[in-house]
């Protein structure tokens, strides 16, 4: 069963900073140690806040700050956990992709081997007058099954090498 996760919608926007603004922006984010994306988001939010000037009491300002600080701590923790998980998942995916690719090669070899064995069985059966229809197991294949089980038990490495 797959887990359905709903994420809050995102809005993508493009910001162009020509000339002097671009230079000021570059100096600013370098000084702060921010990425360009972080810088744009922080400064847009800072600017928008300057345009909305609600008359707040001291306790409102304090409560708003405390709530923002708590949310920021929680977001940083979530982002850290997500980044760690991403690193682990990327390694798992690389390993799984390599293993599956190897399996595809080995399966192709096993299928080719099966085709060869089926042809040999058909040929032998034809030569011997036909114990069963070509390539199909006979009705009395208990001895074959016992021998096959024994071969799989005793020669697993050979089976692996043969692919």
């Amino acid at each position, binding site marked *: 069963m797959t887990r359905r996760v709903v994420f809050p919608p995102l809005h993508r*926007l493009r910001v162009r*900073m020509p000339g002097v603004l671009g*230079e000021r922006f570059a100096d*600013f984010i370098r000084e702060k140690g921010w990425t360009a994306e972080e810088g744009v988001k922080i400064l847009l*939010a800072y*600017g928008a806040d300057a345009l909305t000037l609600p008359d707040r009491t001291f306790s409102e300002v304090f409560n*708003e700050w405390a709530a923002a600080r708590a949310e920021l701590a929680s977001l940083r923790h979530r982002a850290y956990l997500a980044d760690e998980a991403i690193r682990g998942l990327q390694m798992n995916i690389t390993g*799984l992709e390599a293993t599956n690719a190897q399996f595809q090669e080995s399966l192709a070899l096993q299928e080719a081997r099966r085709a060869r064995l089926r042809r040999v069985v058909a040929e032998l059966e034809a030569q011997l007058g036909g114990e069963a229809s070509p390539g199909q197991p006979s009705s009395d294949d208990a001895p074959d099954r016992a*021998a096959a089980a024994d071969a799989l038990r005793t020669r697993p490495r050979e089976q692996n090498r043969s692919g």
Partner: protein
Amino acid sequence: MRTSVEWEIEVELLEDDWSTIRRALESHGRDPEADLPWLLELGLERYRRDEEEWEASGEAKGAATRRAQELRRRETAALVVSMRARTIVAEMRMHGLSERAHALGNALRENRQRMRSLREENALLQARIDRLNSSPSSSSTAFRRPGLWERIARRLTGRGR
């Protein structure tokens, strides 16, 4: 002489945060898309000014004055807007990778099952060949057929036609 730096940056914000920014621009008769550089410049100037004010009032940094509290609020609120989008983007990526890993795990289980089944089938066929080769009719009739064993050997080893 410094060369002119022209930036064009694409960012993602939470739709709710973008709505707040858009409303703020529109309330001042500004275009939400075209005036983004203007808003960014406003934010840059105000951030610089607030920072200078914060630095200048060094002795009041720890004090819970209304002004100090307001400066702290502004910075934290802006950082939250940036961090919300960054966190959601990281969590979306994590979710996508998790689904991919899950699908690859399922494929691996299917491959293992298929390999087991093929090996069993091949062992069965091999055992059947061995039994047919050792059957009395094989030793009396087929064994004497010219070229039979050479053809079988070629088929089994896959060499020659």
